[in-house]
């Protein structure tokens, strides 16, 4: 099973799960952000530049990238929160495009469309570090590239599991109930004493943070980024993870990212029709199952319980 091919796919699934979560978090207070590709690029570029040009260690780069995305998320979030529904969606879409154009034009820093290559690689750096301390992959009976892929996978898996635990606890709490209340009826939520603006900015910037984090990981897993990686299409792809998998339960975007990353890999021959399938998923879901494949009743049924349990809504 330690085949770098499978591990590679698994690693992309995990990154996509984090991206799916990033849009899910924002959606949990009823806000649709199409700017997550933009936040992803901020995280990716920040971390790439800090590690490549400044020589910071990767962990510092990834943290800085996520943090910057978070801060910009707050900055963008505060004024745009006055906007409702489609207005917010379009303003954030505009934000993503502005960021992309900025990265294209800010050549002295970003090398423009050519992108940044030679970004320290998560697995290779790890291996090099260990080798300096006298470790070799053979000790574990692995080839170098197997070790590298395995390392990436394990790190990403640990991160994803932690994130899921984080959010599943958060959503099962007072804060999570506030999120859902806002999503269901913002005015009524406010009347219950919920400071809706605070929670909306909180989820918006948490979404930005996660997207930036996923972007930084992406940069260190592929080793190369360019503005073309963060277009409108990426934003839509992230949206589809949540919309397809289920935008009302935490497992929705997880399932969506998993399924939609594996599917094209399994059906390599069908991938010609992949975007047809994407488009059709969006329309059909909205018509027949706007909440996505997974929702609370289905999860309850899967767990063999009755009633709509809220305590573990996550």
């Amino acid at each position, binding site marked *: 099973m330690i085949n770098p091919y499978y591990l590679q796919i698994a690693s992309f699934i995990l990154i996509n799960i984090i991206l799916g979560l990033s849009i899910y978090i924002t959606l949990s207070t009823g806000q649709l952000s199409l700017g997550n590709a933009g936040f992803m690029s901020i995280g990716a570029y920040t971390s790439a530049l800090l590690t490549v040009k400044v020589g910071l260690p990767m962990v510092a780069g990834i943290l800085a990238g996520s943090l910057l995305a978070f801060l910009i998320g707050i900055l963008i979030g505060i004024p745009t929160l006055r906007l409702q529904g489609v207005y917010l969606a379009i303003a954030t879409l505009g934000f993503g495009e502005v960021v992309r154009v900025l990265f294209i034009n800010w050549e002295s820093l970003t090398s423009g469309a050519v992108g940044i290559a030679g970004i320290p690689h998560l697995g290779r750096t790890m291996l090099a570090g260990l080798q300096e301390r006298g470790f070799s992959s053979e000790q574990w009976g692995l080839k170098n*590239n197997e070790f590298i892929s395995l390392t990436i996978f394990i790190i990403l898996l640990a991160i994803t599991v932690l994130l899921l635990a984080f959010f599943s606890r958060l959503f099962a709490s007072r804060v999570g109930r506030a999120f859902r209340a806002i999503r269901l009826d913002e005015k009524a939520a406010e009347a219950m004493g919920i400071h809706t603006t605070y929670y909306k900015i909180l989820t918006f910037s948490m979404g930005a943070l996660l997207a930036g984090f996923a972007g930084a990981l992406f940069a260190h897993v592929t080793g190369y980024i*360019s503005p073309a990686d963060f277009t409108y299409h990426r934003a839509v792809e992230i949206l589809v993870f949540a919309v397809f998998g289920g935008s009302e339960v935490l497992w929705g975007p997880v399932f969506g990212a998993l399924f939609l990353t594996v599917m094209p890999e399994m059906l390599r021959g069908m991938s010609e029709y*992949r975007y047809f399938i994407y488009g059709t998923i969006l329309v059909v879901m909205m018509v027949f199952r706007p909440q996505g494949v997974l929702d609370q009743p289905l999860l309850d049924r899967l767990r063999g319980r009755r009633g709509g349990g809220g305590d573990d809504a996550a």
Partner: protein
Amino acid sequence: MRKISKFFLTASILALVLAQAIPAAQAAPVAAKIGVISIITGAGAAYGEAITNGFKMARDELNAKGEVKIELLIEDSSGKQEQALAAAQKLINSQQVTAILGPTLSTEMKVVGPEANASGVPIMGTSTTAAGITQIGKYVFRNSLPESLAIPASVKKAVAKYNIKSVAMLYGNDDVFTKSGFDSMKKAATDLGLKVTTIEEFQKGQADYKAQLTKIKATKPDAVFCSALYEEGAVILSQARKMGINQPFVGGNGFNSPKVIDIAKEAANGLVVATPWFADKNDPQVKAFVQKYEKAYGKKPDQFAAQAYDALYIMGEALKKAGQADRNKMRDALAGIRNYNGVLGKFSFDAERDVVMDPNVLIIKDGKFQIFN
């Protein structure tokens, strides 16, 4: 997701002189699995199709000769880095190929190259023209003519012929190929001491270039250097000529496509490009290839097909020299390839495994590509 037409690339030259292949003792053929990463689906599929056609034709010919037995394992990347990387992992680890041809795009190579290099698998791009490709590592090769070779060639010839003193530049700033093409162009112009009247940018998918062209026209340059893929390039030419910009256009390899003539019609006349591949070249080897390709696939081979065709021949040659399907031996054999004559002309790898060759400089005249001199 659509990186489509982005990738128009350059070419490359190769040279494998079949005639040189030693006709000596016929041992059992050297068998090897060669992986191919190409764009089979999605927006760039047209390039991927030409490329895989070129590979298949070369494979059939090589296997028929009996010295090598090459099995091609073709994987799709859809032009996306992630999928290209997954495909490379599959080829390297699951299918245990000896070497990889592709991927199609430079962006993909920047992700796949380091992985192949780290895994010790020789990889050769047949259409990756951006800067810094073979510098990824000692297992990374290419036979595609980089823009840094193609553009100075066309610029030099055009400057000499038209006595160009000043130029306006126009390029797509959101695309790797057109951007790095522009960088070469700018360097070439500076090297020749040309006066740059203005530098204008455009973005992918733009329909209206009149604003930029109006500005360029007002600066009255002797020529326009335009780094664009033919998609945009043809539209730019047609709008420019309509506005009365009749100066010569000098383009990169990405501008080199018969489609320029289809789209821009007479407006295409006066476009100078450098390219490794010239289908109407008066050369028996080229003629034979064109004829055979046309018969098999119903259309003329473009530079992608030609580069791919030569690339597999180079692989075949290296395989013969290596004598067995061994990744390291294959790498060393490839690195030693010099002066092969392929359909693209005479080809060598330099010390950095990059391309050494003389491109053809062509001009569109009377509605078709002709040798420019």
